[in-house]
């Protein structure tokens, strides 16, 4: 088991294995996506307060969860990069960044579209929205810094440090709705007691969240393969492809 994991860390093996997994992940993703969309758009009843507009939740919340999850994954890679200088961690970190930034943007945009009919405004400078916006800037900063440094191994270390410094933002985002009175609604799913959301809405939500998770891995593998090719273009295993 450990040996398999060790092998996975080597670029040529990862390249191959990721390539094999991508079609499977795509199928799983599509199944989850369709199930989630069906459950959310067709099966689930309209909310008695919000009517049909609440259905934005099925993309907004999974996107927001992914935006946080991906950054934490990147921070984890950052720690691995600084401690062990593992090449694969470098590739995973930088490949995750655009995906994380996209989800952050999506969370902000869909939240904005949901906010207008429900709470009367596209934007408000409360703690959660502002800290999510900062998260977007952090992602963009990571991408920008990595681009600016020519030597990619050095760039990865720089970006690792930046990611780790920015990780303090994540708990701020998550707990912001508890710490500050906010326009954004409080936690309904990630509470430790019974979630205060009806199961007919919870199930599609979880399905979509899972779909987005699988998508992340799928898109990540895709991007990692490209990144590996670019970084290792002078090495033997690339020649042999």
């Amino acid at each position, binding site marked *: 088991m450990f040996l398999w994991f060790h092998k996975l860390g080597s670029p040529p093996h990862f390249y191959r294995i990721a390539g094999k997994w991508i079609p499977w992940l795509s199928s799983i993703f599509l199944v989850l996506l369709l199930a989630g969309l069906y459950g959310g758009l067709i099966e689930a009843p309209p909310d008695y307060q919000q009517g049909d507009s609440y259905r934005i939740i099925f993309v907004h919340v999974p996107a927001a969860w992914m935006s946080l999850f991906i950054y934490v994954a990147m921070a984890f890679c950052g720690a691995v990069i600084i401690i062990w200088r593992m090449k694969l961690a470098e590739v995973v970190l930088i490949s995750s960044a655009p995906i994380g930034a*996209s989800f952050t943007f999506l969370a902000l945009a*869909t939240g904005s579209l949901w906010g207008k009919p429900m709470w009367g405004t596209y934007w408000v400078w409360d703690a959660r929205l502002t800290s999510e916006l900062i998260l977007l800037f952090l992602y963009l900063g990571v991408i920008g810094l990595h681009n600016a440094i020519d030597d990619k191994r050095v760039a990865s270390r720089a970006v690792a440090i930046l990611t780790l410094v920015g990780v303090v933002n994540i708990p701020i985002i998550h707990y912001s709705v508890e710490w500050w009175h906010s326009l954004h609604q409080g936690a309904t799913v990630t509470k430790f007691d019974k979630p205060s959301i009806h199961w007919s809405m919870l199930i599609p939500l979880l399905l979509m969240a899972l779909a987005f998770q699988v998508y992340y891995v799928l*898109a990540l593998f895709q991007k990692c393969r490209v990144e590996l090719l670019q970084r290792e273009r002078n090495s033997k295993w690339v020649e042999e492809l």
Partner: protein
Amino acid sequence: MMEFLQMGGYAVFVWPSYALAALVLWLNWYLPRKQHEKELRQLRRRYKAEQK
């Protein structure tokens, strides 16, 4: 069907949200794939040139 598309009057908010999601998901899949193919093409050209 019309009722579904109307989304209780909120269509102008709900459907763009889903459209944005679809766009984001598609781009993060499509752009790396195109990059990948480009990389492979460039590499093949390079090795052909080196063989000579």
